[in-house]
């Protein structure tokens, strides 16, 4: 059985590496999606992942329209040997403008990041999402991610 579902037309999107000048647009998009202002966090993130500090283990990509409006971003890095895990790509952030969701922008960003990670030598990609974050969980499920051999554990510090 297949399902038919109307999908709005896909705008022409260009995926490119982020640069430090994208900072304000990234902060604004994150604030729009999460409702919190994390300017310092993203400034530090961009410094480590974008521009001249870009390394093959770290990737920060943005999606922009033909009018050069930033409408999404994704970031990931390669981590290795945490509790025995061989080198693996970690997706650390993903955001798409809510008004442009379900048009394939997240998939384009995800595919582009996976391509970079594959070139960098890893064969597995992993992420961690809140159990009640339905939008991101269902997106990653749709991209083929499933529960893996590691389990997230946490506790409050006393």
């Amino acid at each position: 059985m297949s399902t038919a579902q109307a999908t709005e037309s896909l705008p022409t999107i260009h995926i490119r590496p982020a640069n430090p000048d994208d900072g304000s647009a990234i902060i604004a998009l994150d604030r729009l999606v999460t409702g919190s202002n994390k300017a310092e966090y993203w400034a530090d993130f961009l410094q480590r992942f974008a521009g001249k500090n870009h390394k093959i283990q770290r990737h920060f990509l943005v999606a922009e329209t033909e009018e050069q409006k930033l409408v999404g971003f994704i970031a990931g890095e390669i981590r290795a040997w945490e509790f025995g895990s061989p080198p693996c790509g970690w997706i650390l952030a993903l955001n798409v403008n809510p008004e442009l969701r379900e048009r394939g922008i997240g998939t384009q960003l995800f595919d582009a990041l996976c391509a970079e990670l594959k070139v960098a030598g890893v064969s597995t990609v992993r992420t961690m999402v809140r159990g009640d974050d339905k939008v991101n969980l269902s997106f990653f499920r749709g991209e083929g991610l499933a529960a893996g051999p590691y389990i997230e554990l946490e506790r409050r510090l006393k």
Partner: protein
Amino acid sequence: MKLQKASRYALYAVLHLASEPGRQFSTADIAAQYSVSTHHLAKVMRALVRCGLIESVRGVGGGYRFTGNVRRTTLWDVIAEFESLEANIEIPDNLEGEAEKIFIGLDIVNQELDTLIRATLDSITLQTLLRYGEDAAKK
């Protein structure tokens, strides 16, 4: 987790309706397609209408129509009405001392399992569920 019969019927119905969102199907159509009881399916269809996943269309050629979005509607959305993730461990009455502590511990474990099961079911959209089946069939 053992899937209730009503959950299975709900998935048949919702996925069948979602396969042609603009078209209406009667309970009898769907029951015949999946070889299930029309009577039991009718109860499930009424529950799905109450949940807002499908709507009833009256008149000639009437039936039911899918009102959700296969890229957003999850497995949990469809079966939540029919499933209970309440802890399955029955704590006997009048427990005391060490026995009570053991059951309290087991109850905490069960709550953790419920949280994981709920999160998993609520992360799988109908589109993803169908793709799992199609991918497995190709192999």
